[in-house]
């Protein structure tokens, strides 16, 4: 049976979401219309461009480059910090709207979804018409724009969605592959990354069309099974189903790390930085519906020497304070006073909350659990800094650290 798949992709997601949020809060400037970026604070050593506006693109600013470099290209550039809690809210608002159109929705990343529209044509109408309707509803109700790609499988839908931005609907049906997809440079093909593209170009493969028409045996020889997959993708072949409710495979662990903008040399400051990481990690742990039974702490010193310690717990936990208690004891065990540049924590060996092994000495976390739940709800509703611990006041430290950008495709907490 021929399927109908839509790929919904938020245009400059982080930037649009921040822009909309600012407009809703009375800002007179729309970030999307001026040269602007979402970027880390370079004073705190994590200054890279996470997202850019279309005017910023005009200055040849690229995602992933250092903020200071972007500022050199455009001195008037507006730099806004990321707000991952806002992004989570926006993402779930988006999927709520999409649920009106299909029950099969796969969150592919925080700003991308697949929607299986197969069979729904008869009820709601032609895919292109409905896609335009979805775009309009999102624009009206949520204030940001999306691109929608339509085809018969996830790969082609995604390729179509990436064609021309912003706020457009495109199709790449199988009969359109040669005209719409094959002329594109090979690095535009999904799964062809920085490592593969130069290798392909070295073989004289410059466009997706070149790749599609390359002898499959040659690709197999060069890239093994990866080559077979590339060849199939270039020919628009992809059988994978839309997995409702999961954009990820099984979560094995949740972690976070942060580079501190100064070298930490005292325990109390180190505790605070760790606490800020614990706040986000344990919140994500709770959202994922798991408890963890392994807690790990990693440190990187000013001499860039890394070390990590981990601990297996007798009873799985998910409370912020419970995780923090273990993190502190691990830190005490491993820290010998060297100046610390980077700290990370990770929780793993996850257990569902369906079964609880009773214990003679279970600390009573019930009260703490209720508090965590309330704080989580407040933060989701009013933003991450709506409730913070007073120990962070005047500390110069962020009360919640987390959501490093390269972790986003597996960001479990939105699901």
């Amino acid at each position, binding site marked *: 049976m021929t399927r109908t798949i839509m790929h919904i992709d938020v245009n400059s997601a982080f930037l649009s979401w921040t822009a909309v949020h600012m407009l809703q809060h009375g800002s007179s400037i729309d970030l999307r219309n001026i040269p602007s970026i979402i970027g880390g604070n370079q004073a705190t050593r994590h200054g890279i461009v996470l997202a850019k506006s279309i005017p910023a693109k005009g200055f040849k600013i690229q995602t992933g480059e250092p903020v200071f470099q972007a500022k050199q290209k455009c001195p008037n550039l507006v730099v806004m910090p990321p707000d991952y809690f806002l992004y989570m809210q926006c993402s779930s608002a988006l999927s709520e709207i999409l649920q009106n159109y299909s029950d099969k929705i796969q969150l592919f990343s925080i700003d991308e979804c697949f929607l299986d529209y197969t069979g729904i044509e008869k009820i709601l109408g032609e895919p292109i018409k409905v896609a335009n309707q979805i775009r309009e509803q999102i624009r009206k109700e949520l204030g940001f724009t999306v691109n929608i790609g339509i085809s018969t499988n996830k790969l082609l839908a995604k390729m179509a969605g990436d064609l021309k931005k912003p706020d457009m609907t495109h199709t790449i049906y199988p009969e359109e592959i040669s005209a719409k997809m094959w002329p594109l440079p090979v690095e535009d093909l999904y799964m062809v990354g920085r490592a593969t593209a130069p290798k392909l170009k070295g073989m004289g493969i410059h466009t997706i069309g070149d790749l599609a028409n390359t002898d499959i045996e040659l690709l197999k020889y060069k890239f093994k099974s990866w080559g077979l997959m590339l060849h199939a993708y270039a020919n628009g072949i992809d059988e994978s189903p839309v997995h409702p409710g999961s954009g990820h495979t099984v979560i094995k662990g949740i972690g976070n790390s942060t580079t501190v903008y100064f070298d930490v040399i005292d325990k109390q400051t180190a505790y605070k930085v760790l606490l800020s990481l614990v706040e986000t990690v344990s919140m994500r742990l709770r959202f994922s519906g798991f408890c963890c*039974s392994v807690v790990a702490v990693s440190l990187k010193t000013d001499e860039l020497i890394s070390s990590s310690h981990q601990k297996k717990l007798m*009873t799985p936990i998910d409370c912020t304070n419970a995780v923090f208690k273990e993190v502190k004891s691990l830190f005490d065990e491993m820290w010998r006073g060297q100046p610390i540049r980077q700290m990370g924590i990770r929780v793993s060996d996850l257990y569902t909350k369906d*079964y*609880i*092994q*009773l214990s003679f*000495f279970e600390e009573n976390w019930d009260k703490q659990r209720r508090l965590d739940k309330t704080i989580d709800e407040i933060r989701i509703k009013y933003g991450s800094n709506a409730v913070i611990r007073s120990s962070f006041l005047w500390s110069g430290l962020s009360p919640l650290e987390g959501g490093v950008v390269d972790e986003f495709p597996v960001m479990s907490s939105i699901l």
Partner: protein
Amino acid sequence: MEFICDKNILSDGINTAQKAVMPKAALQILEGILIKAENSLTITGNSLEIGIVSNVEAEIVKTGSIVVNSRIFGEIIRKLPEGNVKIQVDELNNVIIECKNSHFKIKGIDSSGYPEIPEVEQDNKIVLTQNVLREMIKHTLFSVSIDDNRPVLTGVLIESESNRITFVAIDGFRMALRNFFSDQNYPEFSVIVPAKTLSEISKIIQPTDENIEIYVSKSQILFSTNNCKLVSKLIEGEFINYKNLLPEKFESNISIDRTELLSSIERVSLITSDGRRNPVKFDIKRNNLTLTTNTEIGNVREDIEIEVDGEKLSLGFNPKYFIDCLRVIEEEKITISFSSEIGPSIIKSGIDEYIYLILPIKIR
């Protein structure tokens, strides 16, 4: 120093003393064993936590002492041909090992730096047969906690009072208790012995009626047999008041065949890799116990005929906890008492020889 000894006797002696040696000790000398030839030959291993002295039958030619690397010396002696071994130490602390056509010369360490094994005051003394001690350890050691957060639980509580000796181990989720009743009276004491100590002593002693003497001081315990002596530190702190953990009322008591239950649980746990993630559900109905579990591999149901006194009940357990104690119990017909879905269940012998207590897994 110089002595002559049968290779196998020497090897056994090393083997016993070696049990106290840490393979990677903080001090090089602690990776060694002390060989001392005086009136008799003794070999000592010492990790500062545990010290073991084994007596070895040997012909002493010249007295003296030396420390040699435990692993290397032990391996050499073990691989020597059968027969007598001559060990000599020269003035440069080289150890010369000669047996038939094998001639080794390895470096030794001056023995003056080797830590002494503390003397244990011989006040509180109990005597058991080696077999009884072995059984007591076997029946309780598996319940010891591996969580360093509660050091007292990483050991076994040994309590002695009038004619009773009790071993108790608790890991937070279960308890194993074993009593030994004697016709003699014992001194009154209560100490916590590290799990490692008991595990090593149970490897050293034999399932025989030969006696083992146990001496307890404030911070040390000494186990003494004819050919070896083991001294260990005790764990400081207060053990849990285990008597408070025992429930008074039970909702249901069942009488069941031990082997049948053990085989069923072992089969059920074939499809559970982790009993904490996949508990076994016990459904107690009239004359029937149903065990079920559901995992990503599949599901299983086992039915066992039982005698029930009490209410219908349905609760979950980590199968490992049942397997551990069912394997060591010797009686064939056992009684299991369930207090509630969230309270402890116990397996207990009629004459109070043992009590196993297991906390259930709450199923949401």
